[in-house]
């Protein structure tokens, strides 16, 4: 029981914070944060566990978003089915490109993904203009039907749904990190030769990590599509290619709460600073450099020891 609690305490704390956010902050902001943290979890897993830095996450985001959008625009009305289709598209996409990409060295991997994002951008913007409507994007907010229980066409219900999805995704990654597979990932990041000698296939380990991470990203894309009710090629533009990487670093690489902390910080800063001085790149950029120079622990990595200290002192007091 106690162990269960310990397993969960972090998530309870983090999501309590999100629930509090919901009360104090405007809904669009909270929704943005939740989706962004799901978006980042995939990237964080890829970077922290498998050692792959990807500058092409928008490509997978768009895969999910556009799959959902196509369904909702052309075929159906049920947002849940739309999201499921988005996830499926993510799996298919990463299964197609994964076997080719994960063979590459990590530096090439980063750049090849960037190339994929650029190709996606031009595909969506120009080549497939007949079905994607190019730069105008697809608008289907009114197509989304009300659903019983959690009505995704209403932002506050959507928030609850996204919240639950985020918890599920987080718990999944937490579980994954504790399994043998998680250990294999880490091992293949640190020393691929030794993993080979132990009888595991680096290729399979990496492919699985790639598929898992990018399916998560596609899920975030689907959520974006349903939430905003519209998609446009802009989401894959190379300007935004580094967003998830930046958030991962801001939050702290490989930590589980990092994506949440990073998403809050990034979205918050973007909103706050661009509201105040209209120049958020300046602050984010220098913050990023500062974090890297200070030892890449990120926001969560720095906060965690402090929080733990605080919490355990409380526990100690209680037990006395």
């Amino acid at each position, binding site marked *: 029981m106690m162990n269960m609690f310990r397993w969960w305490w972090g998530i309870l704390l983090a999501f309590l914070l999100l629930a509090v956010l919901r009360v104090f902050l405007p809904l669009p902001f909270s929704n943005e944060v939740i989706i962004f943290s799901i978006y980042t979890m995939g990237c964080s897993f890829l970077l922290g566990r498998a050692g792959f830095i990807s500058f092409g996450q928008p490509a997978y985001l768009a895969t999910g978003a556009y799959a959902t959008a196509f369904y909702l625009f052309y075929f159906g009305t049920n947002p849940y089915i739309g999201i499921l289709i988005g996830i499926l598209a993510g799996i298919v996409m990463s299964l197609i490109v994964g076997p080719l990409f994960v063979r590459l060295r990590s530096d*090439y991997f980063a*750049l090849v993904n960037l190339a994929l994002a650029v190709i996606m951008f*031009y595909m969506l913007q120009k*080549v497939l203009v007949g079905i994607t409507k190019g730069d105008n994007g697809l608008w289907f907010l009114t197509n989304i039907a009300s659903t019983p229980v959690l009505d995704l066409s209403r932002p506050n219900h959507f928030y609850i749904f996204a919240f639950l999805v985020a918890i599920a995704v987080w718990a999944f990654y937490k579980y994954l990190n504790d399994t043998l597979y998680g250990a294999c990932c880490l091992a293949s990041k640190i020393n691929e030769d030794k993993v080979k000698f132990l009888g595991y296939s680096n290729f399979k380990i990496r492919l699985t990590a790639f598929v898992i991470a990018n399916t998560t990203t596609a899920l975030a894309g689907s959520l974006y599509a349903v939430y905003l009710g519209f998609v446009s090629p802009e989401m894959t533009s190379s300007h935004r290619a580094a967003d998830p990487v930046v958030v991962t670093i801001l939050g702290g690489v490989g930590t589980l709460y990092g994506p949440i902390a990073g998403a809050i910080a990034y979205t918050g800063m973007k909103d706050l600073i661009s509201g105040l001085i209209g120049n958020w790149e300046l602050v*984010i950029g220098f913050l990023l450099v500062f974090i890297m120079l200070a030892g890449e622990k990120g926001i969560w990595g720095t906060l965690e020891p402090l929080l733990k200290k605080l919490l355990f002192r409380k526990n100690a007091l209680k037990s006395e």
Partner: protein
Amino acid sequence: MMDTQLLISGVIFGLSIGSIFFLMAIGLSLCFGLMRIISLDQLLYYSIGAYVTYSISLLTGSMWLGALAGMVVAGIISFGVERFIFLRIYERDIAFTMIASFGVLIGGVGVIKSIWGVIPRPVPIPTLTQISILGTEIPVYRLIVIAISLLVYLGIWLFLNRTIIGKAIRAGIEDVEHVEGLGINIYRLFTTTFIIAGTLSGLAGGLHAPLIMVDPQMGLEVMPFVFMVVIIGGLGSIKGTLISAFLVGQVVSIGSLIYAPLAQMAPFAIMLLILLVKPTGLYGSKLLKR
């Protein structure tokens, strides 16, 4: 049927774009080869080069003076960045330096925005003369750009093959620990290489400025193309970079004559193909560790 005039101007256009890509990619390639960093901040020095060119040409009326100043300023700033940031993190993982350099890039874009504002600025082209090649009017400025990039290639080649520091850099691209083991201060080599890279990026920005509008995001716009050039050529190879720069330039330019959307996308498809066949690029060496 494409007519010859269009084709010739297309080729020249492609070569001049390729020259700009080459000037930027060579620095990236050297930095990767020697220091094992992916220096995204080269794109910042490119923007700085362009902006300084803009300001100086506005002030003095001479774009050439502006490009020169842009080069110098870009070189100085790259020196500062290397000293204060990269020198501390060379030992780290490549993902780590890549992110730090990205931080420098967007931080720098922020600085540019606060100095020059967000509105795109035009830079006057220094010479409007055209000469006729096979009956096609070709702007002389584009030819000058091509000539400059070839001169730079020659210069870099001489530097790497004829000077002792160049030889040390080539040796370091193979194995930096052995160079260090001989008693050569590798950090001095790193700084030299970084400044060369930054200066050339600045030059690229200065030369590119009259051909486009100068705006704060310009670095991010060429980023995918420049990286593609580096990858197709093979990280760490100078010759490969030159060839792939001109290749990409031609694909962009000739491609746009055939079918406009193809121009932007085709190079990336080519890159994917090349990487799948040869994961280290055209001239990428297998000797590179890591």
